[in-house]
């Protein structure tokens, strides 16, 4: 049952092959049995899930047509869930139980989906390896000595281990696509403004965007249909009709122009990863697509620009955690200043503190223009690179990450080595473009991700191209050893 895709589960529910209660109990029991080895779930909402599944079965019996009625999903622990702890992977919010649902969570409830629990993540979504979580690292189901990627590593690992058929995730610099690549699943970061950020704990507000993770592009389309919405409560949410992302999956991609950025195949790219990506591009050629070499000349500036903009916005966003209204508070503060300083030093982990300090530095008097102002201008350069490229091509493709999953601790002492992990994913966040990753090969028994970057609001075309690839390849159906049965 856990090998079924969401699409197959929906069919099975409609045709009474199994009930939502049966599926929900099956996945709950898998989480309880298997997840101690992976640590992908922070909070299991068993009682709520069983009750919701019972109600879903009643709805299904009545012929309810809510699109995800009875389908179990996991939510990244960055989305506020009414009455259920939302930790954001931090000691700061270890005791935080929100009194409301994020818009994304509400959309899933309205679509009839069942929440199984909340997934592990890098603290405040700051990390590419899941090593910064207060709840301990998530292990990659393909190789438990290796990272699952981050920050949405819990959601990605849970799907790879067949603990849930789909999950929510967020992406600020690659946090959906990189873990999707390293765990061998499919994940999509939509255009900035496509999905509401309301109720999603803020990291870098001009970059953060929520999106779906599942095993196939077809399932991601179903989940995006539910996640994408216009929301008055998020002033950056774009008021634009949500298309049916499932409608054009079957279209032919003959004549599709695919841009291959030469900067994505340069120094630092693992040879096996490059081979897998090039073979996938050859598949696209066989399907009638045309490959066009393009240049994104400012790619090298994306990591430096990101590590000014993201920490600057984070330092402002995280100033709200002060021990007064919710979350952690230090014991016996001697005065208000002491309350702030010790609460924050105790509640935030090392990487979060480091980014707050960098952001504070870049925004402080005398440095603002040289760092923050300059980074915003570079961001414009990067956007122009893409605008020019999309005059010549329909989609851009390349590797999602430079290499397959690395071992725990291998990038430990140098934050910059970890930051370079996101070299191919960060520029789409800076430009606000949609990007996705899908499985396209294996290197040393670890998955490789193919990245697809689309023009603004062109998610349907990306999903179509990904789905067509998944009709002629079987990388997305492979499971880690010991998981399939």
């Amino acid at each position: 049952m856990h090998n079924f895709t969401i699409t197959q589960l929906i069919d099975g529910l409609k045709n009474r092959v199994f009930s939502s209660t049966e599926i929900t109990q099956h996945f709950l029991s898998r989480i309880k049995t298997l997840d101690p080895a992976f640590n992908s779930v922070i909070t299991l909402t068993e009682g709520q899930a069983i009750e919701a599944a019972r109600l879903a079965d009643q709805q299904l019996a009545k012929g309810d047509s809510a699109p995800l009625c009875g389908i179990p999903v996991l939510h990244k622990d960055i989305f506020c869930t009414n009455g259920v702890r939302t930790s954001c992977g931090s000691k700061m919010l270890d005791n935080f139980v929100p009194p409301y649902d994020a818009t994304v969570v509400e959309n899933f409830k309205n679509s009839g989906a069942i929440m199984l629990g909340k997934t592990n993540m890098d603290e405040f979504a700051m990390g590419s390896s899941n090593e910064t979580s207060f709840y301990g690292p998530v292990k990659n189901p393909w190789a438990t000595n290796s990272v699952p990627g981050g920050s949405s590593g819990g959601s990605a690992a849970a799907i790879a281990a067949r603990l849930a058929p789909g999950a929510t995730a967020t992406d600020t610099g690659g946090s959906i696509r990189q873990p999707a690549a390293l765990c061998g699943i499919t994940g999509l970061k939509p255009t900035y403004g496509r999905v509401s950020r309301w109720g999603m704990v803020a990291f870098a507000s001009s970059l953060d965007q929520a999106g779906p993770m599942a095993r196939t592009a077809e399932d991601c389309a179903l989940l995006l249909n539910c996640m994408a919405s216009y929301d008055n409560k998020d002033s950056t949410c774009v008021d634009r009709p949500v298309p049916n992302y499932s409608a054009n999956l079957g279209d032919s991609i003959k004549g599709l122009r695919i841009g291959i950025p030469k900067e994505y195949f340069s120094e630092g790219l693992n040879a096996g990863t490059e081979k897998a990506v090039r073979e996938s591009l050859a598949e696209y050629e066989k399907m009638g697509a045309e490959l066009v070499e393009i240049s994104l000349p400012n790619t090298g500036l994306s990591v430096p620009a990101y590590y000014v903009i993201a920490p600057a916005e984070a330092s402002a966003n995280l100033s709200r955690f002060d021990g007064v209204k919710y979350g952690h508070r230090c014991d016996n503060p001697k005065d208000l200043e002491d309350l702030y300083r010790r609460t924050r030093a105790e509640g935030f982990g090392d990487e979060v503190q480091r980014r707050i300090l960098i952001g504070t530095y870049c925004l402080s008097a005398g440095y603002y223009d040289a760092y923050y102002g300059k980074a915003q201008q570079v961001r414009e350069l990067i956007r122009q690179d893409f605008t020019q490229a999309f005059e010549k091509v329909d989609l851009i493709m390349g590797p999602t990450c430079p290499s397959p999953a690395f071992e725990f601790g291998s990038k430990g002492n140098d934050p910059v080595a970890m930051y370079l992990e996101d070299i191919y994913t960060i520029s789409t966040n800076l430009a606000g473009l949609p990007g996705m990753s899908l499985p396209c090969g294996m290197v040393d028994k670890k998955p490789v991700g193919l990245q697809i970057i689309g023009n603004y609001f062109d998610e349907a075309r990306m999903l179509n191209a990904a789905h067509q690839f998944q009709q002629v390849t079987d990388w997305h159906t492979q499971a880690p050893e010991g998981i399939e049965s």
Partner: protein
Amino acid sequence: MSIEKQTIENLATLARLEIDDQRVEEISQRLGSVLELVDQLQAADTNNLMDNSHAPQATQRLREDKVTESDQRDAFQAIAPDTEDGLYLVPKVID
């Protein structure tokens, strides 16, 4: 590149973070290596460029000035570390 102790202490004050003396050295090293990375920006030619703080160049909307939220003070204060009579409690600020 490393950052002076005085700078770290100043940042810690601005960011309201308590930093022990024994952590200053390590933080200085790590911040230094990140600043080396971001200093690559200085080489970029950005003359005559607008800064791009909102990626898809969207305009901000205005909404009607009317109350849409109900009073949820009790629910919000139920999760606060310390409250009294509907107020959030903090250490004494004025003698």
